[in-house]
C-alpha cells in the first residue's frame, strides 16, 4: 500500500519577488489590495493571492495567473522609482500541491522542516530544503503547496514518483 497523497504539478502562477524596506513595501502592496503578513515565514492570503514573508525585507507574491497582466500593470516591475524592488518571476518556479491523508509524510520525506503547528502555523510559508534543493513550502487546504526553481521541476517530479510508487 503506497501513500494516500495526491501530487499535482501546478499550471502557471503569477509570481513577484519583492524586496525593500518594510514601510515602503507595505505602501506599494496596499495598491494591490494586500497587506503584509505580521510574522516571519507566514503568508497573508486573500482572494487566491498569497503574500509570503520569506526573509528580512523580502516577500514573494503568488497569485492566479489570470491576474498576471493586471498585477504587472499595478506593480510596475520595470519602474525603479519606488525605492523597493519588484521582479516578475512567474516563470522561475515550478509549483506542486501535495494533498491527502499522507501529505505530512510526503513533506517529512522531502524536507527537514518541522511542520508541527507551534512551529509552522496554519498561515506558515517558508523557504526550506526540499529534496536537497531550496524550496518554498506553504500550507494548503488538505496539505501543502510547494515551489522550486523551475529547472528542478522535472527532478522533483521524479522524486515524487519514487516515494509514492517505490520506483527506484
Amino acid at each position, binding site marked *: *500500500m*503506497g*501513500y494516500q497523497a495526491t501530487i499535482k504539478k501546478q499550471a*502557471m502562477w503569477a509570481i513577484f*519577488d519583492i*524586496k*525593500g524596506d518594510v514601510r515602503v513595501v507595505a505602501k506599494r502592496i496596499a495598491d494591490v489590495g494586500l497587506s503584509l503578513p505580521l510574522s516571519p515565514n507566514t503568508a497573508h492570503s486573500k482572494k487566491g493571492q498569497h503574500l509570503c514573508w520569506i526573509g528580512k525585507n523580502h516577500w514573494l507574491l503568488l497569485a492566479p495567473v489570470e491576474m498576471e497582466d493586471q498585477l504587472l500593470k499595478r506593480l510596475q516591475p520595470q519602474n*525603479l522609482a519606488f525605492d*523597493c*524592488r519588484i*521582479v*516578475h*518571476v*512567474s*516563470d*522561475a*518556479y515550478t509549483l506542486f500541491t501535495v494533498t491527502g491523508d499522507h501529505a505530512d*509524510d510526503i513533506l*517529512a*520525506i522531502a*524536507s*527537514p*522542516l*518541522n*511542520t*508541527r503547528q507551534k*512551529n509552522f502555523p496554519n498561515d506558515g510559508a517558508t523557504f526550506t530544503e526540499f*529534496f*536537497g*534543493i531550496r524550496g518554498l513550502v506553504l500550507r494548503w487546504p488538505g496539505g501543502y503547496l510547494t515551489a522550486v*526553481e*523551475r*529547472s*528542478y*521541476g*522535472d*527532478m522533483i517530479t*521524479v*522524486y515524487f514518483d*519514487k*516515494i*509514492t*510508487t*517505490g*520506483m*527506484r
Partner: protein
Amino acid sequence: MTHNPFRQKTGGRIDRNSCVEFEFNGKRYSGYKGDTLASALLANGVFLNARSFKYHRPRGIMGASVEEPSCLVELLGADAGGNHAATTVQLRQGLKAKSVNCWPSPNFDLMSINQLFTRLLPAGFYYKTFMWPNWHLFEPSIRRAAGLAAAPGDQIPYQHFETRYWHGDVLVVGAGSSGLLAALIASRSGARVMIVDDHPHPGGCLRSSQSKIDGRPVIEWAEAVCAELDANPEVTRLQDATAWGYREDNLLMVTERSPAETHVFQRGWKARAGRVILATGAIERNLVFANNDLPGVMLASAVQIYYHEFGVIPGRQAMIFTNNSSAYSLAHDLQAAGKMIAGIIDSRSFEEIGAEKDGLEIPLYAANQLKAAHGGKHLRAVSIRAADGSIKRVDCDLLAVSGGWNPAVHLFSQARGTLAYDDALASFVPDKAMQRLACVGAAAGKMNLALAMANTLSTVTTCLSEDNFKPPAFSLPSCTTSPDYHLQPLWHVDGMKPGDKAFVDIQNDVTLDDIGLAMREGFDTVEHVKRYTTAGMGIDQGKIGNINVIGNIAMACNKRPDEIGTTTFRSPFTPVDFGSIAGQRNGATVLPFRHTPITQWNKDQGAVMYEAGARWQRPGYFPIVGGNMQDAINAEAEAVRYAVGVYDGSPLGKFDISGRDAAAFIDLLYTNDFADLEIGMGRYGIMLSDDGMILDDGVTFKLAENHYLMSTSTGFADVVFRHMEYLLQIECESWQVWITPVTSQWCNATICGPKARDVLEALGVSIDIGNDAFPFMAMREAIVAGTPARICRVSFTGEVSFEINVWPRHAEAMWRRIMEIGAPFGIVPVGSETSHVLRVEKGFLSLGHEVDETADPYDLGMDWIMSRTKTHAIGRRSVDIRRSSGKPRRELVGLIPKTGGELVPEGAPVTPNGDRAASEGFVSACVWSVVNKQIIALGLLTNGRARIGETISIRDRERVIEAVVTKPCFYDPKGKRLRG
C-alpha cells in the same frame, strides 16, 4: 512438514501454523513465522554455521540479538544485504542467506588451514609481515581471505529505500519495561513521542522473564501499554528499528527494517527530539576460558530467549558457567521445562550466591571455574577446575555463559556523555550527559526490574517537568521481586596456558594471548591495544567482549578498569544498509539535475545529454547518421562558422541587480570600469576573489540607471551569488542593492553564424537589427515572431550572435519556430561540445579549463581588463602584490600539438624536454579545429607569452607529444566577424 529436532513440542511465540521455507548456504530448511534466521537454524540443529575471521575456526550462534559476534550472513535475492547477524534477520518465506566468511561451506572450509598456522598469525601480524615492499600489494588478497559480505547487486523492482525526518518532544530508545514506561508517561503528558525498538516485538528482556507486573505476566502488561500508545496519534512506535547513531542536537539516526508500507524496503529516520530517553537495556558479556568460541557455547540470556521466544533449546545436556546471579533464571527455566542440566559452575563462593539458587535441584559447582571447553566442530564436554585445583570433566553439548551485564551506553557515549566505572556491576555506567537526554533502567545500571521501573518513573517525570510538560499522577505498577543482581568480576579463568585459545573478541579472533603480546610490545593504552589487535572492531564492535579486554589490560597493569577507560563508541551501533542513509537519492536522482524548457526537444532529437555545470543537463552533441561523435561535432561547428547554428543558452546565470548603490556595487565586483557603460549596452567583465584569482567572467548589461542584468558562467552562478550576498550583507550593510536571481525567468536561444541576422529577420523582429542600430554588445527589447523578447548581441562563438531571451512559457514554441524558419538557411542545433570547439578556436576563456582558481587576468593576457584608475575592486590588491614579486607565472598560450590525429587529454602536463619532472604547465583544452583543419589546443605555460614559436613537450602517460607554442587565438584575431 517442518522437521525441527531442537524445537520443543510447545512453547515459544512463533506461529506453529505458518511454516516458512528458507535456504542457508544452499540447503533448504524450514522454520516458523516469528523465527529469526538464527532460531530457525538452531531449531534445525545447524550449529556450525560460521567460520572465524582470521583462523577460520568453526563457530556457532552465541547470542540472540545485536550482540551476536559469530554468525554473520549475506542475504541474497529480494532481501539483498550484507553483514547481518543471523540473530537480527527475520525469517521470511524464501529467504536465502549464506555465511560470509567461509568457502565453500562452514563445515568444509578451505581457509581453515589458517588454524595450523596460528602461531604465525599473532596480534599485529599484518603490520609485521606485509611490510615489504608495500602493504598495498598484499591488501587485496588478505581482504578477500578475511572477506566480509559482498555489496548486494540485486534490486527489488517495486521497493525502495526511504529517508524522512521526524520532529517531536520525547524520543525513547528501547521498548523494554523502562522504555515502555517512559513512553507511556510522556504520551500521557501530551508530548509527541517516538519509541524505537530493535526487536520485532516490544518487551525487551521481559519477554523471557517469569516476573509479573500488577499480578499479570509482564508480556501482557507490555501489550496493554503498546495498545494505549498505538491509540495516541501523537505517538510513533517503531519495532524492528534500530537507533544506531546519536548526532548533535538530539538527532537520532534510526533504520526501520519492516515498514508497514509495502513499497518501502527500509526507512531511515532522522528523528530530532527535545528530549531523548535511552532505555537501551544491558548486554550480557562473555567469559574468557579456553575454546570459549566452540559451537555450543552461548550466552545464557540468548539460550533463555531461544527457549521463551522460539521454543528452541539448542542442546540435549546443558551446563551453565557464571560469575553472577542472573544466569540462575535460565536454570530455573530449564528445570521447569524438565530439561537435562549438567550443573551450574559459579566462580563466586557459596556464601556469595544468594536466593537465586533456591529451589534448584542440580549440581552447583560454587567457587569453581570452567577450565576449558572440549570438542571438534561442536562442544562435547567441559572441564571444571575446583578451588583446590582438581579437574573434573563433564559431558555437555550446550554451555550457557554469563559474565554479567554491561549497560548499553553506546548511544549515550556517542552523544559525548562521560562514563563512570561501577564496582558493583564491574562495568561502565552513564555519568554526565552532554545533550538533553536521560538514561533509565538497565541502561542506567539498574539491573533489577522493580528498581528499574522506579528509576524510570522518577527520571522521566523530572525530565518532562523540566521540558514544561505536566506529567500525570502515575502510580508505579507492582513488580514481583527478583533476587538482587550480584556479580564477582572474572576477567579470565585461572590457570590459562600460553597457546590456549581463549577469546576476548570472538568476531575478530583476538585471544587473551594477543592482548598480552600487544602489551609486551608496548601498546598499553586501550586505544592502542584495540588498533594493534583489532579487538572491539568489526561488525559487533565488541559488544560482549570489550569489557574483558579492558578488564584484562587493567589486571595486567595492576590498575582499575576506569584508569584504563573505554575505547570510543562510534556509530553505527549495528550494521546499517547504506540505502537507509541515502534514501530516495539513488538511480535517476543520485545527483540533482536541472532541465531547460528545451530539454525534451533535445532528447526527442536524440541528443547525447550530460551535465554541463551546475547540474544542468545539456546536449553534448547531436549524433548524425553514418558518422561518429567527431563527425557530428564538426558538422555543427561548420554550420556555425559558415551558415548558422542555434544553441540553448538558458543555463547561464542571470541576476537582476538594482538599488541606489547598484552602480557602485558593480564597480566593486569587476576589475574593469563600468561607470561609463551606456544604458542598453553590455560589457564583458571579470570578477576576482579576495586572493586575486579569477572568480567568474560574464557580460553585464545596463538596463537603466542603477539597474543591471548580470550574466555569469553556468557553473559559477551560485558561487557568484554567494559572493555578492556576502559582500552586501556583511561588508556593505548600509548599501541599497537588491539582487534577484532570474536564471530561470529567462530562456535563451542563441542564433549564431554568418546567417544569424538573416534568420532573425525571417523570424520577424519589431526593431532594426542592422549593425548600426543594434551594435555588438547591445541589448534591445523587441517582438520576435510575435513574442516579447530581449535580444542581446553577445558572442561566445566568434560569430555574429543574437541571444533571443523569452519567458520559459514561450521558449519551446520560439525554439521550434527558429528551427522551422532557419531550415532554409541551414540552421542546426549546437551542443556543448561544439560550443567548446568554437570558443577554443577563438581563445575565449572557460571556467574550469583555463580559469582554475590559480589564474589572474594578466596570466590570461587580459591586462586591458585591469582598470588603471580603479584600485578598490575586490581582489585587485592581491593581484598587485603577487605581481610585484616578479616571479614567473603560467600564461595562456595556444598550442599546436604534433599528434597522429588524436586529441591530447585535457590536463596533460607540459614538462621540460618531456622528462619525468616537475611540470611547467598543462593543456587546458584540445579540439579539432574546423577552420584550421588541424588539432589545436590551449594551455597554461610558465612565461608562455615569451615562448611563442618554441616547441614544448606534453606528457600523456608514457608518451611525449611535441607542440608548437602560438598566440591563444586561432581564428579572426581582430574579432571582425563577431562585430559584423
